[in-house]
């Protein structure tokens, strides 16, 4: 990303990838030390998860801003969509958190997974909103932005399911769920690499002729203009 200067184009995503690498190093080191997967590991994991989800939010907002910058006419509408969707999804997520709080004895774990589930709902919903928004307005996705959004969206949905399972089990990790989550995340990373390494493709249209309109209407419009 640095070599292709994509870190300037997508600074939040760059921060996210750097943080994920750092988090892996810290957690791996902790798990291999005498602390192993004890209370310290859980605390570090929880803090890392909270920071990671916050940064992912920033990445999603960065994607929205990516369109605002390229299409200034949609700045107001896009901001409204982002805020409106966030509020609506937050209500849904909070409602779910109240109705299905989880069964873990550890308050910290329950809070962590409940927060993760809430944020996953928000992130999924915002990404879906962004895709639908861009579909309606026929906004041109550059390959890089699309790849980032796709990877994030897939991971957010799997995280949503995983946090539901963890909350239900009330235990810190289930081997099958963990493997599925890790496999998904690896797939997402490969997706990001694929899209970021590849060249951005601009759609090419050869406009042979301008559209033909009803002359009477156009002449009327020109008379009004003059």
């Amino acid at each position, binding site marked *: 990303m640095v070599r292709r200067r994509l870190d300037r184009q997508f600074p939040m995503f760059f921060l996210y990838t750097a943080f994920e690498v750092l988090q892996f190093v810290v957690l791996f080191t902790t798990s291999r030390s005498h602390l192993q997967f004890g209370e310290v590991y859980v605390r570090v994991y929880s803090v890392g998860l909270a920071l990671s989800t916050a940064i992912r939010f920033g990445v999603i907002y960065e994607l929205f801003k990516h369109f605002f910058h390229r*299409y*200034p*006419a*949609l700045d107001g*509408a896009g901001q409204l969509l982002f805020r409106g969707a966030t509020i609506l999804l937050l209500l849904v997520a909070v409602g*779910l958190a109240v*109705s*299905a709080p989880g069964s873990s004895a550890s308050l910290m774990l329950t809070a962590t997974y409940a927060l993760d*589930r809430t944020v996953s*709902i928000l992130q*999924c*919903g915002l*990404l*879906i909103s962004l*895709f*639908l928004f*861009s*579909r*309606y*307005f*026929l906004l*041109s*996705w550059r390959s890089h932005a*699309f790849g980032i959004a*796709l990877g994030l*969206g*897939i991971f*957010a*949905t*799997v995280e*949503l*399911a995983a*946090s*539901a*399972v963890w*909350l*239900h089990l009330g235990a810190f990790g289930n081997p099958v769920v963990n493997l599925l989550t890790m496999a998904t995340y690896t797939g997402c990373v490969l997706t990001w690499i694929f899209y970021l390494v590849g060249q951005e493709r*601009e*759609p*090419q*249209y*050869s*406009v*042979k*002729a*301008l*559209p*033909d*309109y*009803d*002359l009477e*209407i*156009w002449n*009327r*419009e*020109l008379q*009004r*203009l003059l």
Partner: protein
Amino acid sequence: MTITLIIALAAFAALMFSVRLTKGLALSADVLENPTEHIRSVDVEAFRNLIDRDEEEFLRTNLPPADFRRIQRERLRAAVEYVSCAAQNAAILLRLADAGRRSSDPATADAAEKLVNNALRLRLYALHAIPRLYLGMVFPGARISPVRIVESYEQMTRQVVLLGCLQYPTRGVSAAL
């Protein structure tokens, strides 16, 4: 857990559907290669008449209530068709102008930029106007007048002409039309 898993599955399905909609050709290559065949003429004056408040008031005062409601619903249904058509035209022009933004000629790029912005505004207004028109069909007595659609469409058509003149300077406005 069941509810959350249902939400997760629904979210995944919605995500894949949205991605497919986005990545799939929203406008087919044929539409963009031959826009002439796909852009439909919009009678702006007829649309003005359909949403004209004075006309609506005239009908309201001169027709029995049941007849007025029936006719008003028909007018609004026709207005929805006009708005949808204008929005679809805006979509085609938007994609064409988006390509024009990358022109090396600053005047063409500027004209294309303005056209893109106006086409986007039109689609935005259409997004607001169509539900209001449908609401007007449900409550025919309600005051619905998406006038900004008309203004935006007229502005967009002026910019298309300007863009055409810039791209084909030797052929003039008539040739562009």
